[in-house]
């Protein structure tokens, strides 16, 4: 899994370089950015990830960085700064100089769902950032334990009893998708939050909970092994990796929830820097290695422009807000 055996060493030198680059740019920013952007990049471009190393967000960042290093012509070290679901790293980035030397890998849930669960000052506003490019879509799948006997979502609605369902935590897409779905389907459910996808999946396999919604890449090995039954995917269309499983929309429910990821820079990054970055990423998207990576991790490419990402994510944020208000759902549980 680890493609970077000497990551520490690379990081050490890279951060030293970044520091140099930053101090050098201090004067440049005051002197006017226009003259300098033609030289971009002036050193390593740091890509910060607000999640721990080894998770799916981190893996995406590393796959992208590996490809774009060649096309951009500068090393792109990936730095993990986990905390508060990525809010910490994103807020920190928003305060960095807008010269394109510092980027962050942004998850849509931080913009669209987290604000529904936490106070306003803990949430991240997408308008504080310049989104460079959209990357991919990571679908959620509703799975059922073998003991529950559920083979389709209809079995759940027909059961007419209270079901227990695991989520990957408070304020996640997994929680939002299930609570909204169950309200729409008139199913009584008990929300049991887990730390992340893995323990939630384990709980379904061990029949501690009957249902759970997790990211496809995580659930797939157990789905294929027949240890859990896939009932629904929450994307608007069927997922190409799971063609036999209906989408929630097909089943008649209005819960378009998925995880999207994008790359962002501090607000006010010069246009030609953004263009250079976008071009470098687009080159990477075309490479076989990156395509294989997406396939292996069950990610559906969603390579949008920055503007498209902002419009779409804002749309989802409004949609989710409307849904939770309509069904009177509190993502912060039973306070």
């Amino acid at each position, binding site marked *: 899994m680890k493609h970077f055996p000497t990551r*520490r060493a690379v990081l050490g030198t890279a951060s030293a370089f970044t520091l140099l680059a930053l101090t050098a740019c201090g004067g440049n920013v005051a002197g006017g950015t226009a003259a300098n952007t033609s030289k971009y990049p002036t050193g390593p471009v740091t890509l910060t990830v607000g999640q721990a190393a080894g998770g799916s967000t981190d893996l995406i960042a590393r796959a992208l960085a590996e490809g774009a290093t060649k096309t951009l012509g500068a090393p792109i070290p990936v730095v993990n*700064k986990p905390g*508060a679901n990525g*809010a910490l790293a994103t807020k920190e980035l928003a305060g960095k100089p807008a010269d394109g030397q510092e980027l962050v890998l942004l998850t849509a849930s931080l913009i669209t769902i987290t604000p529904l669960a936490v106070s306003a000052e*803990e949430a991240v506003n997408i308008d504080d950032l310049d989104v460079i490019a959209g990357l991919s879509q990571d679908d959620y799948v509703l799975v059922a334990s073998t003991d529950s006997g559920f083979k389709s979502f209809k079995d759940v609605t027909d059961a007419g009893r209270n079901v227990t369902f695991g989520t990957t935590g*408070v304020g996640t897409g997994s929680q939002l998708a299930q609570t909204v779905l169950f309200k729409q389907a008139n199913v009584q459910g008990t929300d049991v939050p887990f730390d992340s996808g893995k323990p939630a999946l384990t*709980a379904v396999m061990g029949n501690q909970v009957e249902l759970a919604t997790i990211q496809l890449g995580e659930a797939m090995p157990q789905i294929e092994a027949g240890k859990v039954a896939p009932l629904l995917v929450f994307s608007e269309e069927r997922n190409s990796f799971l063609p036999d499983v209906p989408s929630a929309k097909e089943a008649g429910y209005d819960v378009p929830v998925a995880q999207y990821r994008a790359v962002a820079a501090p607000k006010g990054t010069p246009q030609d820097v953004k263009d250079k970055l976008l071009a470098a990423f687009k080159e990477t998207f075309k490479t076989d290695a990156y395509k294989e990576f997406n396939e292996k991790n069950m990610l559906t490419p969603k390579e949008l422009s920055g503007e498209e990402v902002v419009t779409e994510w804002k749309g989802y944020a409004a949609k989710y807000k409307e849904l939770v208000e309509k069904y009177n759902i509190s993502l912060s549980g039973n306070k």
Partner: protein
Amino acid sequence: MDFLNPVINGFSVVLEPTNLLYCLVGVVIGMLIGVLPGLGPAATIAILLPLTYGVEPVTAIIMLAGIFYGAQYGGTITSVLLRLPGEASSVVTVFDGYQMARQGRAGTALGLAAIGSFVGGTAAIIGLTFLAPLVASFALDFGPPEYSALALLGILLVATISSGAKAKALIAAAIGLLLATVGRDMFTGESRFTFGSLQLADGIDFVPIAMGIFGLGEILYNLEERHRAAKAPSKVSNVWPSKGDLKQASGAVGRGSVLGFFLGILPGGGATIASMASYAMEKKRAKQPERFGKGAPEGVAGPETANNAAATSSFIPLLTLGIPANATMALMFGALLIQGVTPGPQLVEQNPELFWGVVNSMYIGNILLLIMSLPLVGIFVRILRVRAAILAPITALITLLGAYTINNSMFDVTLVVVFGVVGYLMKKFGFEPGPLVLAFVLGELLENSLRRSLLVFGGDPTGFLTRPISATLLLVFVLVAVLPGIRSLIAKRKGTAAPAGATNKIEEKV
């Protein structure tokens, strides 16, 4: 024998050159710090934790495990030659080991200790090999209720079994539980004790706490202690024990293996308690107990076997259940988490190469130690001459640098400094840091599992008793909590005061 396949594959993992190298590095570092009084394996692992970040998980754990059992070997050398136990688990070795050295039998004592350690370690690995898949076969039956019961039992055992003052251990454990509540509530998203800081939103990270309390705290505390000048060590000759010695010690080695194995599995147990228990047992069983303290070979062989067996078997609860049995194992737990591996019942199945790689590396490590320990005694003893004034600033610097690199966060460095001061003050006032750190790890597990179970049970606490594993664990919990009270009641009725254990005075440093 299908189940042996992953075991054999594990050997191919260990025999990869990188892993062999890290195993060697681990046991050498382990022996070094075993020789140095003060810095224990827990402190060393805490300090080196960030260095393992860049290597494969299996390689990292192989090295850290090497440090742990290597230290048990190293501690023996100074106990025997200089009457200076490098590790708490070698304290009892001083009694007879140093006497043997004075009688010119230092080589025999070291040889016996090395052979005993090897036998004890190997016996425990074999036990681990057969017990782990058994526990792992229950993996999916371990849900939130089972974890709640297990965490509860673990916290109780940690607070009551650990050597040292019980009241102080309980206080330390309570502080650990309190610290575990910091951060965003898993179930409501409510912020608890974060004071509006996003840095605290995910709670306090385990690694800075461990690095501060064990690493920095230990360094500060040692600075205060005046170091005795290293004496010229006794001459070592004739390392291979005679047939008579071996015969005399073989019973002690056998008993030490079994005793150490079981005490190591117990939460709150570990190498130190195992060595003390073994010494006490050998002395009780001996036909002429007056020989003990005057150079009895069993007094060296027994405890040295037991501490190594316990050091190895304490990996069992960690690798199979995800429950660290002692402070060092809590650090291993942290190391695995840094690597993105959550130790638990599914580790054997999902990560067989990691599990068996680590387990089998212990065979290799033990052989390496056996080969190295005796010829290198002289070199190791020289390290004692390095002054604390040089060693302490270097280790402190490595600690702080390491703390930064884990999350690239200055906040973590601040945390290490704060907990370093806490750890120093705790040691100074006689509080053992172990219960605090373990309660911190188990506290989070307890709270989350308990609340999750109650959600699943629909708020009905009797649900815990309807599941066989959790009911059994809770029964054990009640027994452990009540038994000491009943025993003292019976003792009072008989009118005999319970003999005060002299062993309580020895500080647990593991």
